[in-house]
């Protein structure tokens, strides 16, 4: 499947819709295109349609409407076994009645590859995940992390150009997950494989991906590189789904270019950056990241609006301090400060002034 198309896109979803029961669309008008070699993560809460998209790409579900293209060719009518897509399943799906080597040999055998070549490829694939010594074991004799490595090398052994991963690290403990996150990314980049990765773990999505597609309600809410996704969420769903986030409800009272004033529900006025609000008088949800809230007035511009806040709780978390405040009637306003030598440890009951740079405060849809 040489990439003969001049088109940049390797995987394309064009106006794809999917419904299981003819009444509810689980995927609504999906458009997505990814270039060769990209590591793209589909992130979203359960039921958001991300796994359905993956299954349509793999060929296990058919699109109700729209076209899916791989390397420029529509693949809607190609059965899964002819798509040549490697896939890693959530529960690994290693064949329990075969040894590790037999598991890896399976995709090569069905491709009628000769024995010596097979063995060479198997050992190379096992080498990629440092599992050469386990060729003779059965999956049940391996730990979860080892099984995951084998599942990965099985999906890679027949050298597919596209690999799909359906929450592959979901069943592992935190430490192992982090190690494997790194390994998966390294392998994908080293081998130049195009990867579509599905997860509901935002940390995983942020650390591993070139781009992240945030799914909700059957749509891609935002498709962007991790830093952009975190720092510049385009709507309040993304802002709240990715990372920790403070929200304040208010109404737009003034818009000037890329800055606006928001009158909060208790009457206070703050500066914000309008993202998907356009008119004065529109309801808005203002979003500020906890680490961008500033307590030190000297770091703010002199004309910046500040808010009164009361400290409700101080939590020591080691590397950072997490302080919960009451701001404009909101009891769940959190700020995070670095555990630096000169950092103040606020005691509950203290009244402070807080503020932020207008570009860090995003006025989003309500």
């Amino acid at each position: 499947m040489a990439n003969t198309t001049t088109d940049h896109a390797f995987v394309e979803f064009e106006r794809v819709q999917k419904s299981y029961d003819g009444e509810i669309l689980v995927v609504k008008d999906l458009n997505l295109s990814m270039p060769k070699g990209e590591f793209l993560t589909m992130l979203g809460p359960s039921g958001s349609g991300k796994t359905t998209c993956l299954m349509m790409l793999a060929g296990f579900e058919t699109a109700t409407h729209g076209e899916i293209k791989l390397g420029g060719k529509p693949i809607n009518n190609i059965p899964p076994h002819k798509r040549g897509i490697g896939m890693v399943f959530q529960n690994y799906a290693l064949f329990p009645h075969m040894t590790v080597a037999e598991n890896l040999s399976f995709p090569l055998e069905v491709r009628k590859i000769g024995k010596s070549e097979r063995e060479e490829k198997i050992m190379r694939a096992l080498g990629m995940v440092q599992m050469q010594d386990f060729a003779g074991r059965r999956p049940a004799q391996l730990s979860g992390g080892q099984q995951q490595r084998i599942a990965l090398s099985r999906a890679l052994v027949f050298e597919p150009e596209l690999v799909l991963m359906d929450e592959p690290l979901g069943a592992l403990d935190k430490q192992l997950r982090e190690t494997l996150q790194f390994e998966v990314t390294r392998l994908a980049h080293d081998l130049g494989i195009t990867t579509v990765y599905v997860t509901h773990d935002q940390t995983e999505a942020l650390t591993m991906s070139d781009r992240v597609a945030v799914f909700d309600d059957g749509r891609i809410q935002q498709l962007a590189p991790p830093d952009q996704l975190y720092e510049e969420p385009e709507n309040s769903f993304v802002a709240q789904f990715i990372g920790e986030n403070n929200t304040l409800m208010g109404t737009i009272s003034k818009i000037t270019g890329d800055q606006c004033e928001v009158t909060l529900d208790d009457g206070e006025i703050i500066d914000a950056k309008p993202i998907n609000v356009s008119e004065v008088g529109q309801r808005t949800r203002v979003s500020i990241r906890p680490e961008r809230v500033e307590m030190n007035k000297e770091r703010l511009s002199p004309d910046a609006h500040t808010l009164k806040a009361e400290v409700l709780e101080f939590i020591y978390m080691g590397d950072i301090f997490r302080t919960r405040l009451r701001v404009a009637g909101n009891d769940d306003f959190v700020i995070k400060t670095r555990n630096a030598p000169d950092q103040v440890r606020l005691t509950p009951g203290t009244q402070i002034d807080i503020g932020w740079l207008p570009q860090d405060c995003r006025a989003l849809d309500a």
Partner: protein
Amino acid sequence: MSDATMLAADGTPLKRSLARALRRQKLRALGLIAPLLIFVLITFIVPIASMLFRSVENQIVENTLPMTVEALADWDPNAGKTPSEAVYEALYFDMFLAAEAKRHTRLGTRLNYEQTGVSSLFRQSGRALDDIGKETQKPLEELNNAWKDGETWHGIFNATDNADTALLDLQRKRVAALTGSPASDEVNFAPDATLYNLLPKTTRAYTAWAVYTATQQGRDPATRDPWEAVATALALDLRTADLSAYSGPGADLLAEAQTADLPVPAMATAFADMDEDWAGATVWKTIQTHSSTYTSGYFLNAVDAQKTPDGVAWQPDDKQILLKLFGRTIWMSLLITFSCIALGYPIAWLLANLPMRQANLLLILVLLPFWTSLLVRTSAWKVMLQQQGVINDVLVWIGLVGDGDRLIMINNQFGTIVAMTHILLPFMILPMYSVMQTIPPSYLRAAKSLGATNWTAFWRVYFPQSVPGIGAGSILVFILSIGYYITPEIVGGTKGVFISNRIAYHISSSLNWGLAAALGTILLAAVLVLYWAYDKIVGIDNVKLG
């Protein structure tokens, strides 16, 4: 050493303390399962064991003809001669007691399994025995009226001080073994040791009679007349006895009888007159061959062989049926198992892969036969399959089969296989279903994503994982069908019956329980061997019933 012993908080050794704590738990657990355990033991294990034991049990010959068996031990069956007079004599006394207890016909039936005709021979001889005895009883009573009186006999043979309790116990045992009911009641008689020395046969015969009369009939031997056999024994004894030194009770009566030279029956001739079979060697060979306490005869019969004086030999060709039947039973059970796999596998697959609602509905359909009587289901097949039945009618109606040549689908092997496949199908589907339920669909998807076609994915990935279910279902169906009885009986005709039908025949019609038990034992052993083989090949821990 004592330092190393761990102590519990109260100072007792930890091990003992633990054992005590666990013992209470174990006892409670045992108490909970005790009702079931006892129930199973009494209603299942014990009857089966006792039934299986019958396949080797052969005490009936020894119990019925104890003296004959002993006397016959020295006889050489190949010498071409009939046994000695002593054997006939022993047979006379044994048969007499057995005939009085009405047990000789049982032995006749038992030996008839080995040698046709023995049954009627024994029945006839039992009736004719009295005549032999009368030949001596009459002259004795004519000689002196006192012999007519039971008290005379009792007075002579009952010991005053020198009792032979060993003889009494021996006869008690003999009567008990013969009749199968205890013979330990008070007898009001003890044989006189002196007389036993002088007149052994008479004393033995009288003791046997006395024990039988007292314990089995509840009568006082002192007031009853003894059997003719006792008179015969007396006549036999008096020919050789030296009574010159005897001065005990009835010495003069005995001396008078000895001088009178009573007629003594020639036993060999008497039996030969009764039935000429007694003058031939065949019956004797049969008795001798089958006189051991335990026998392999039933098992040999069960595999179409028989025990002969010359060793094991095949049954005559026209009596060889059981091996063929065993073979047919196993062959047809295999066919039924395979057709169950073929029909059940797709259904189990559907059950495991359909959405819950539909799967439940289908499961009810699978289980539906269980709610119908087995007899009804089998009879329904009779209606379906017979020549004027539903299937033939339909075939004739659509013109596939001419009215003249309707298919014969019942009362043959086909009928049995069809009906039993239908009846046993749920036993195949359910284990397969429960195994398939545990195979996640992601395996098939993984296989396909790795490039396997639908068939390869199924055959290389799904099927191997469903084998434990097939194994469990096959064992279940095969074991059930190998011992199936009702369905082959109803739809099998003569060609479609199983070994179990033969067992039932021997249990309820021919009453040859020994052979039935041997057949059952072989069947059980065959199943166990298959089970063992299965364990070796597939591994029994791979079998999952759920």
